[in-house]
């Protein structure tokens, strides 16, 4: 009898140990239903709940001034093993709150906060650039597709000339060069995150120069890239989330940023007791970046998967600046 009780007690303890993590998440002001970062992060929370049996609470601030209040309320309750901030504009609030609650673990996604109790998750942007660049180069030499012209040119349009975007462009160019089939990559910048009209104009001018696959790494300006491809019937590539629904016949693939997986990774680190207040650079290996299937043909996917394995194994080096691209 005693043995049974002891076994049961051990079981109970074990159960407690398994369902241990409480996680709180503070979304960006767009709130749930944004079809972007917040929704993806929520997916990640749900996934983590299934995988690791965590409990979670979330907050949807309606104003930037509320970030600090929510973060402080969560931290003050001392109930959570991890508090996650979504959205770069939480950096100010998190910097202050993480200093105030030194024993609380925090994580921020797609932004860096340099405090010992904050894990910052950022991305090796050049890796997804490589994948879509390689895919473009493999596509543009096809001959049996009306959306493909005779020229061996592909393009990428950045939002602004900042290191993050240039890493994407450098990856894209490296990917194109890796295909080694004489395809040329051209690039330009919109100089605005939310100017679809100019994005479209630049895309059409690339199209005039012979580009038939164009990637828009330009925030909302990228919508113009997709629009242009729909109008003239060539290929475009979306960014961050699956934008295929915008032009099902023209969006070839998407340079995906898997915020859901990133959230899971952050939570798993805490559960495994591996939390560290440092910068994590995630990429293909962690499935935090990637590409979506959409219109990609089977043979291209096979090639992409081979390249992906090589990148993960460290066999392909991808520079993060355009100057370093050979």
């Amino acid at each position: 009898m005693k043995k049974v009780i002891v076994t049961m007690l051990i079981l109970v303890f074990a159960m407690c140990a398994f369902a241990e993590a409480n996680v709180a998440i503070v979304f960006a002001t767009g709130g749930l239903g944004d079809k972007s970062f917040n929704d993806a992060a929520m997916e990640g929370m749900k996934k983590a709940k299934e995988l690791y049996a965590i409990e979670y609470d979330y907050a949807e601030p309606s104003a930037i001034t509320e970030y600090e209040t929510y973060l402080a309320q969560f931290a003050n309750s001392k109930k959570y093993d991890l508090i996650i901030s979504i959205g770069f504009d939480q950096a100010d609030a998190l910097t202050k709150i993480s200093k105030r609650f030194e024993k609380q673990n925090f994580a921020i996604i797609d932004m860096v906060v340099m405090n010992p109790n904050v894990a910052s998750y950022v991305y090796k942007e050049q890796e997804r650039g490589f994948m879509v660049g390689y895919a473009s180069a493999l596509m543009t030499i096809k001959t049996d597709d009306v959306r493909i012209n005779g020229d061996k040119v592909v393009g990428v349009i950045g939002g602004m000339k900042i290191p993050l975007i240039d890493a994407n462009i450098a990856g894209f160019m490296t990917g194109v060069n890796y295909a080694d089939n004489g395809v040329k990559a051209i690039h330009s910048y919109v100089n605005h995150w939310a100017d679809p009209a100019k994005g479209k104009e630049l895309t059409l001018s690339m199209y005039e120069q012979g580009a038939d696959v164009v990637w828009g790494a330009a925030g909302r300006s990228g919508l113009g890239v997709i629009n242009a491809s729909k109008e003239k019937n060539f290929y475009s590539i979306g960014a961050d989330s699956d934008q295929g629904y915008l032009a099902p016949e023209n969006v070839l693939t998407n340079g995906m940023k898997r915020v859901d997986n990133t959230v899971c990774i952050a939570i798993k680190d805490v559960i495994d007791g591996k939390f560290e207040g440092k910068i994590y650079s995630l990429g293909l290996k962690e499935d935090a970046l990637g590409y979506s299937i959409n219109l990609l043909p089977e043979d291209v996917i096979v090639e992409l998967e081979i390249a992906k394995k090589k990148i993960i194994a460290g066999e392909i080096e991808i520079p993060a600046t355009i100057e370093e691209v050979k």
Partner: protein
Amino acid sequence: MIKILKKYENSIYSLTAILLAFLVGAVLIHLSGFSVIKAYSTLFDGAFGSVFNLTQTFMNTIPLIFTGLAVAIGFKSGLFNIGGEGQMYLGAFTTAITAIYLGFLPGYILIPIALIMGGFAGSAWSFLPGYLKAKTGAHEVVTTIMMNYIGILTASYLLLKYFKEEGPIPQTVLIPESARLPELIEYSRLTWAIFIAVFVIIIIDIFFKRTKLGYKIQTVGENRSAAEYAGINSNKMMVLSMMISGFVAGLAGSTIVMGVLHRFITNFSPGYGFTGIAVAVLGKNKPWGVLFAAILFGALQTGGITMQLFAKIPMDLMVIIQGLVILFVAAPILIKKLLRK
């Protein structure tokens, strides 16, 4: 007894309206499947339950005092200034830029200058609708609403074009330490701005009760033709009251920049300018009434956060209660009529 009742008539109606709103709110919370007691107790606790919660309530109250006061001032001359949001954005922007570029000045000079510049920016923005109303009769409701968009977008444009901090975020750099309003309690973000707000209430109250100019403005609001007949230049008074109104709305932005955000960020406001209209209505356009109405709305906002976090009741129910308060504030006219029959 009746005299006392008469004197406090407005307050009594407002309080009744608030009570009624909470009663109907209780029914809604119950119907939505939540515990009313838990909802209201976490709401109250979240707003007033601890020193920290109290500071957060007052922090949320400050911008509403300014924007509420701005609407109330407009009403005094019979104008409906819905442009508080745009005036506030320009106030915030101007204060941030002033503080950054005059950062070499000591705090005791810089803080007043940055505040006043923010106020003037709001004034400048409300001058135009006032002027158009006086000269052409263009309805201020239409022009102020339109000016909101122009104001918010102008501030964003100037920010992105000339003053943006390096990096992906549309914001200015941090304003210097000397331009930041000191916190009353560490980490609370409740700053001296609360005293500035109360000070402005006192000034506006005295202005309308004790000064000739304030009286003239009110006369125009009560009866424009009578005012003209008495020799008051009603056009001038309307422009003036719009400018004072804009000044106060600008201060809402200034105090947020100097007390809470410490920089200008696009889209920082959850609609303080518009909530200010509700605050003015509940406060019956009286300066001190605005104070109490702003505290109520600030408390609902702050308590709503705790309610959402710890009682898992959606924030939207708080917004509904805010709406009900306004509805019932408008209703006493009905109640009055019923009582008098």
